[in-house]
């Protein structure tokens, strides 16, 4: 197990290197002088020359790459042209809202979707099943921003129960933090609940047809335990896979939600950086997201070995 983990961690290195090369080339392959791009439309020649030497752009490409890579290993992601701040600091400040939102959303999703899907599978064909599946079609069809605005209108404007927008750091009080995150995570979770509930239903249905379910019943096991002990755990591998993938999509897709609810997270930072053509920030954000994806994939694979003893690496 340990050697497997180590191997997998080592295997992330080439992946991350590949991403780094891509990100590095992103700037260098853009038509025109990177220094000019970084400097922006209104810079004069002296400024451009200064940027060029500061970034080492006058050196050959491989040397530039190694220098850039070396800096990043020391935590130096460069300076944001737009914010005039270290990119590392910038991202660190934005990480908390994004991670808070994503984690809360995925927890909410799993708590709702897995029981719903299991129930739908167990009562296959009943009104309950049809109701849950109907909801899931609806969840797929509604865009996040529509759900977001509806929720804001109902719960914040009409009922006044929850704040409209904004974010409060968790260090400033868990209550306020949670209160401000409820609406965005509900809005975000709808589509994932729909997706994961469907996946759970399919997976559990398949397992319920297995011989060992019949064996459990032949032992005199109660239906609830047949479902919990025998069915759900065996159905878990595909479910966990989509949960992991959903989480990855979530982190990448918080852009819209953060805009709607005005959360100062990575999504908003990405939007701002793109609009401002702030290349150092864009590079760092892409690298970070890639790294998170690689980690999530690793976590999914490791969870397989915990869920199913037949899977050993």
């Amino acid at each position, binding site marked *: 197990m340990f050697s497997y983990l180590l191997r997998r961690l080592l295997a992330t290195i080439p992946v991350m290197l590949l991403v780094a090369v891509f990100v590095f080339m992103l700037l260098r392959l853009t038509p025109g002088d990177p220094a000019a791009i970084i400097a922006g439309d209104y810079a004069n020649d002296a400024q451009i020359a200064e940027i060029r030497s500061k970034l080492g752009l006058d050196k050959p490409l491989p040397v530039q790459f190694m220098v850039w890579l070396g800096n990043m290993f020391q935590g130096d992601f460069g300076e944001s042209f737009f914010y005039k701040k270290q990119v590392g600091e910038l991202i660190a400040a934005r990480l908390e809202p994004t991670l808070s939102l994503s984690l809360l959303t995925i927890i909410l999703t799993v708590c709702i979707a897995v029981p719903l899907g299991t129930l739908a599978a167990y009562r296959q064909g009943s009104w309950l099943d049809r109701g849950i599946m109907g909801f899931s079609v609806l969840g797929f069809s509604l865009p996040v921003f529509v759900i977001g605005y509806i929720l804001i209108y109902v719960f914040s404007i009409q009922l006044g129960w929850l704040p409209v927008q904004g974010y409060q750091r968790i260090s400033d009080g868990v209550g306020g933090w949670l209160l401000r995150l409820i609406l965005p995570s509900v809005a975000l979770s709808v589509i994932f609940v729909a997706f994961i509930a469907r996946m759970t239903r399919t997976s559990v249905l398949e397992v319920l047809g297995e*011989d060992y379910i019949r064996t459990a*019943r032949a*032992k*005199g*096991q109660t239906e609830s335990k047949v479902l919990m002990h025998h069915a759900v755990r065996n159905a878990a591998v595909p479910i966990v896979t989509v949960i992991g993938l959903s989480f990855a999509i979530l982190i990448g897709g918080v852009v819209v939600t953060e805009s709607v609810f005005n959360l100062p997270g990575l999504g908003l930072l990405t939007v701002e950086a793109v609009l401002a053509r702030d290349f150092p920030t864009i590079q760092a954000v892409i690298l970070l997201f890639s790294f998170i994806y690689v980690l999530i994939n690793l976590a999914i694979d490791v969870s397989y070995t915990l869920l199913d003893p037949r899977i050993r690496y």
Partner: protein
Amino acid sequence: MEKQNVLEVRNLTVSLPRNADRPNAVENISFTVAPGEIVCVVGESGSGKSVTASAVMGLLPSALNPSAGETLLQGEDTLKASPNRLRDLRGTRMAMIFQEPMTALNPVTRVGDQISEVLEIHTDLSASERRKRAIEIMESVHLPDPEKMVDSFPHQLSGGQRQRIMIAMALVLDPALLIADEPTTALDVTTQAQILKLIKEMQERRGTGVLFITHDFGVVAEIADRIVVMQNGRVVEYGDRDDVLRRPKQPYTQMLMASVPSMTPPDRVPRTGDKAIEVSNLNKIYGRTGWLSKDRIVHAASDVDLFVRKGETLGIVGESGSGKSTVARCIARLIDPTSGSISLHGTDIGTLPQSRLRPHRRKVQIVFQDPYRSLNPRRTIGQSLIEAPVNFGVPVEQARKTARDLMELVGLSGDALERYPHQFSGGQRQRICIARALAVEPEVLIADEAVSALDVSVQAQVLELLDDIRERYDLAMLFITHDLRVAAQICDRLIVMKKGVIVEQGPTKKVYSDPQHEYTRLLLDAAPGRDVTFGSDTAA
């Protein structure tokens, strides 16, 4: 005073849903199981034998409803029992073991926990006492090192060991009735012999009444005290073992018994035709040696030499994992041999690259075990039959005409070409698979367990068809089977394989009458029902 029957099935009728092919799955059936007695319910697929067992256990699928009769478990009608009462009875007074030990155990739970689950449901024993009981019962079904095995997962055990776990699980609370639904069908013949012995031992030692469901008359002969013969949901014949096996009264029973191939091979004239295919030093090694991964290597076939003459049937027999299918698949080049030569008319196709292999593909055709899965369900029979000939350049019209002729040759109507696979029975589908193989006029026909999934009466017909076709087209046939009865009847020569190695070969008659290798003797001895005569002696 006679002891109370463990099970009395009285006039049981289970109705099928409206759109089924007959109104009832089982109709008005009655029989009894006494304590310490093994009653075998025997019949072909669709006879209603498994439905009967499920009805007793209260495990019928919701589409099936018992509509009349009663199933008395020690006098208590399980058909009328409430779901709660049924749960109490299951595991304590009646228990069941199933066909597939590979799938009947929960793959993600330790086997010991699965045994102690029964105790957890029905007793107040503490966790440590449950574990102790689990180990005891595992010991009594002769599992090696139960102290250690109790913490194993099912996939770490062999098929026979898993079935022992199932039996341990069923017997841990000493039920009065044990229902065994084809418990040895998925097992190798030597393992089957051990499991049958174990069931008999348990039943004798504990006085359990056993309802044993099987399609295999050999197993029946081995284990039954009394026999219930079922056909299309009705009891055809019911009586003591010797009465039914030695003096069957009903024509259906007689037909079934005659269909079981005899263990005595008929006399066959040695074939002297040219060698259609010759294999030498064939090796197939599975496994990989990759970056940072450990080497896991299996020799699925080691230095296999064989040849098949025109018009000859060569049988390869062996248990699962013996490499017999690997050899067949290498010869058909469905998998690539690791080394060795496969000579087809002087051309070595063993190492030919895929691009140059194509013209030779049509010469070697294969018929697989499962007719339900080897035809594409979304294509008509006609489409499946003409696909290969058209690929090899035969005009569509001509291919269709040949397909019609072939359908008639295999005993089906030429008009059936427009139909889909699901509209045919298993036996018919296997005939279609044979027609498909013949469509490209092969020189070598490989039958890989081609009759193993079929009922005995259908099996007999398909065997006859295969023999017929071999004769008519002067085909070289490679017949892969685990069934020694089938092999005895159809093969001219025989190869016995074990763990990828040929341990014995020779003319079928000689191998059966004078086996040289110990493993061959073991296989022959394990074949169930050797003391009862089956089949007609006129078999070709």
